[in-house]
């Protein structure tokens, strides 16, 4: 259950708990939140939609890819779907490794791959220009 799509708010600590181990000296997390301003336009809220069973498979695939490149890494990813307000958490990626460089590298690899292969879509229904 390290790879999840959730309709409920994500609890960061729960994702981290999945990767902490006696041999991990480093845990990195990436937390993607809903930002208010993008290129001068204001977001009111976002709706995330996923092809859930395939999205979970693709998150698992990313975990396998990380394991191939960083055999000591443990990974957990939860992505939220549904309506998200400003500062709400869309995704949490936690990676633990014995040494810190790998934890940063593997974490960054995960978010880049999510943006390439995981069938999740962001719909910005509340974007307005500066003057509404």
């Amino acid at each position, binding site marked *: 259950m390290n790879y999840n799509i959730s309709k409920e708010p994500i609890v960061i600590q729960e994702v981290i708990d999945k990767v902490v181990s006696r041999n991990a000296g480093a845990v990195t997390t990436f937390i*993607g939140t809903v930002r208010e301003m993008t290129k001068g336009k204001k977001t009111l809220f976002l709706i995330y939609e996923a*092809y859930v069973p395939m999205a979970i498979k693709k998150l698992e695939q990313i975990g396998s890819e990380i394991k191939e490149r960083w055999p000591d890494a443990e990974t957990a990813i939860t992505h939220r779907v549904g309506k998200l307000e400003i500062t709400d958490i869309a995704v949490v990626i936690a990676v633990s490794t014995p040494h810190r460089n790998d934890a940063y590298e593997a974490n960054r690899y995960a*978010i880049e791959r999510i*943006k390439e292969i995981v*069938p999740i879509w*962001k*719909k910005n229904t509340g974007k307005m220009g500066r003057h509404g």
Partner: protein
Amino acid sequence: MINVLLFAQLKDELGKETLSIEGNGMSVAQLKGKMKVDFQLEGLETVMTAVNEEFADDDTILSDGDTVAFIPPVSGG
């Protein structure tokens, strides 16, 4: 019958998220062509396709019971 799933802008464009289409023996490319004609769906050629939850190319041959999902550019994270 082929189960077809639509997401994001394709779902909005068609106004529904699932379809059943006669397509046994068709390739993915042929299915896309048929859907373009039948539903005037724009931009279907450029989206990725998944067959039974794995990415598939346009040459993949479909069988009854397959689930085909059209995957517009993803924007998670």
